[in-house]
């Protein structure tokens, strides 16, 4: 086994790690392989976490949550990914942990009192977050989905794409324009955050969804959403009208660190698989791992994965008390960028190490590879992460 306990953890982080390892031990590689092959949401795994109250990780204790922070969540998600579940297993539950964060910070007392305890107990899920649109991917302030106030309801019209876990969620946190882009001073204004009760939306006939056929992260489904005169009670507005974009940004850096941790876990799983095969497989009378052509790519990727891990954990332990959001943002974007590249290199090396078996489902590395490719696209593409670093960290002119 390649040593994975490479950073110092607090007592609480250790407990999180050990507890998650316990849970993950009951969901082996065959489980994830099968879920991926069948494209079936890992409900049993998600339920195990929900039962343990894990989706209340970031919720305050007064609302029934655990009141933990980024430093514990990165451990949790890294462990899930590294257990063999990969990036997708972490993604299967990622939204459940992060989508209630804006609710905690900006939601009305009524919404919080209604929902948060249920979320913490794992009875209600807010797994879906709807931002991306066909005409607004990376350029997220260009979204066109509109929400217009009519009496005490918002009327929502428009289209979303790539929205994950809609099938596994009771609520969707929806980003919509409440003031057209032409009428606001800055493109980041005029956007609002609405909590959409999905069952109610289907019943009204105000929302139709269509599953996207894709080839990575097969067991976490993504959807196209079509809104037609969907009526959402005005009290479901999270925070202030027109301030939705800023509310979304608040907390995004911490979440990005969690995603970086998922990439690290995936990279570790790939390295483990590659190293184990390199030791076992004998060709030309010796283990293939004795060849530097096999050894070096694994060693190099391992070094990159561990470097990214150090950055993720360092930033995570500062994130919650570091008041300087810009500094956290810089580290979060760099960590995510590095972790995704490292995971990709690790998965690629693992596939190459496996020779032809690199594409056989049975060995899992092809699944890791497909997922690693995806980590370079979501939640923002590597280019956009670099844009951020160039502009906000290096002080270069905005390039887009």
């Amino acid at each position: 086994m390649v040593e994975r306990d490479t950073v110092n953890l607090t007592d609480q982080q250790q407990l999180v790690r050990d507890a998650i390892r316990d849970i993950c031990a009951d969901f082996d590689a065959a489980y994830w392989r099968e879920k991926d092959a069948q494209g079936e949401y890992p409900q049993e795994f998600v339920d195990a976490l929900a039962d343990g109250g894990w989706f209340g990780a970031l919720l305050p204790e007064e609302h029934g949550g655990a009141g933990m922070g980024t430093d514990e969540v990165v451990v949790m998600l890294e462990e899930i990914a590294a257990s063999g579940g990969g990036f997708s297993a972490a993604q299967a539950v990622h939204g459940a942990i992060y989508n209630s964060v804006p609710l905690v910070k900006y939601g009305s007392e009524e919404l919080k009192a209604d929902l948060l305890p249920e979320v913490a107990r794992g009875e209600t899920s807010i797994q879906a977050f709807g931002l991306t649109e066909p005409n607004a991917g990376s350029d997220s302030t260009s979204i066109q989905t509109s929400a217009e106030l009519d009496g005490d309801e918002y009327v929502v019209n428009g289209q979303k794409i790539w929205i994950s876990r809609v099938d596994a969620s009771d609520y969707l946190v929806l980003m919509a324009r409440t003031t057209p882009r032409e009428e606001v001073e800055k493109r980041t204004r005029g956007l609002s955050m609405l909590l959409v009760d999905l069952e109610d939306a289907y019943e009204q006939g105000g929302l139709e969804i269509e599953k996207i056929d894709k080839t990575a992260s097969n067991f976490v489904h993504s959807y196209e959403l079509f809104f037609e005169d969907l009526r959402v009670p005005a009290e479901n507005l999270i925070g202030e009208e027109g301030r939705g974009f800023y509310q979304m940004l608040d907390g995004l850096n911490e979440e990005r660190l969690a995603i970086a941790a998922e990439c690290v876990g995936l990279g570790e799983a790939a390295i483990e698989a590659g190293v184990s095969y390199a030791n076992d497989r004998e060709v030309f009378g010796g283990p293939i791992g004795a060849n530097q052509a096999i050894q070096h790519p694994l060693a190099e990727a391992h070094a990159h994965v561990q470097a990214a891990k150090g950055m993720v954990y360092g930033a995570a332990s500062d994130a919650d008390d570091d008041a300087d959001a810009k500094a956290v943002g810089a580290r979060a974007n760099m960590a995510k960028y590095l972790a995704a590249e490292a995971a990709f290199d690790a998965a690629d090396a693992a596939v190459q190490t496996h020779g032809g078996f690199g594409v056989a489902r049975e060995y899992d590395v092809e699944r890791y590879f497909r997922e690693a490719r995806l980590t370079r696209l979501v939640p923002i593409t590597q280019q956009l992460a670099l844009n951020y670093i160039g502009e906000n960290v290096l002080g270069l002119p905005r390039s887009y």
Partner: protein
Amino acid sequence: MKVLVTVKEVAEVGDDFAIEGTGIAESDLEYDLNEWDDYAVEAGVQLAEADVADEVVAVTIGPERSEETIRMALAKGADRAVRVWDDALTEEFLDVAGKVSLLEAVVAEEEPDLVLSGVQAADDSFGATGVALADRIGFEHAAVVNDLEVAADAGVANVHRELEGGVEELTEVDLPAVLTVQTGLNEPRYASLRGIRQAQRKEIAAKELSDLGLSAEEVASALTLTEMYEPESESDAEMIEGDAGEAAGRLAEVLREKGVGA
């Protein structure tokens, strides 16, 4: 009713490890809560949840590192913990009698009505600590318990014990008692997130020999570890294949070759 659960942090090794002197290289060891003790903790916590037990105290003998393990018992629901260690214990091998002396002192302090311990520890597998403790402190005991019901008012524990050859014994044990718990007694829970959070606020009292009124001589081991080696496999296993008739034929042949029934 008060329950004392003994838990041990056990060392685990993978396929590859190096022997250094009378031990295994530290870098090849991983530590975990002893599997049997996980069931004992669960049994204790279930008694508390059923309002049979008022308090569940976990006790371990181990260096500071073992707090990670005992904290897991707290996260799973034990109320507080006692960790016994002393610099004097790092030098030498601690045998069953030594451990029993330490636990005896803890029992004297805690005065539990029920002591739950694992049948054995996964690393040194003495399988003796629980029963030896019962003998020393004059408690009733039952070993290898795989079913448990405690009638606190009546002062008895109704237990099933697993005997050789799949035989089960049903026994009534008077409290106070020591029960050694077999895996399968229950289904140990995963630590919940709230449990983990709460564990941070629970006490782990560290005790040294002097705190327990003991001296190094009193826990000195009668046993010495003289050597650690990997047993050599003397023969290879043969997997007999084929249908029952063929397999039986081959088996008879092997037995004859080995001189059985000759």
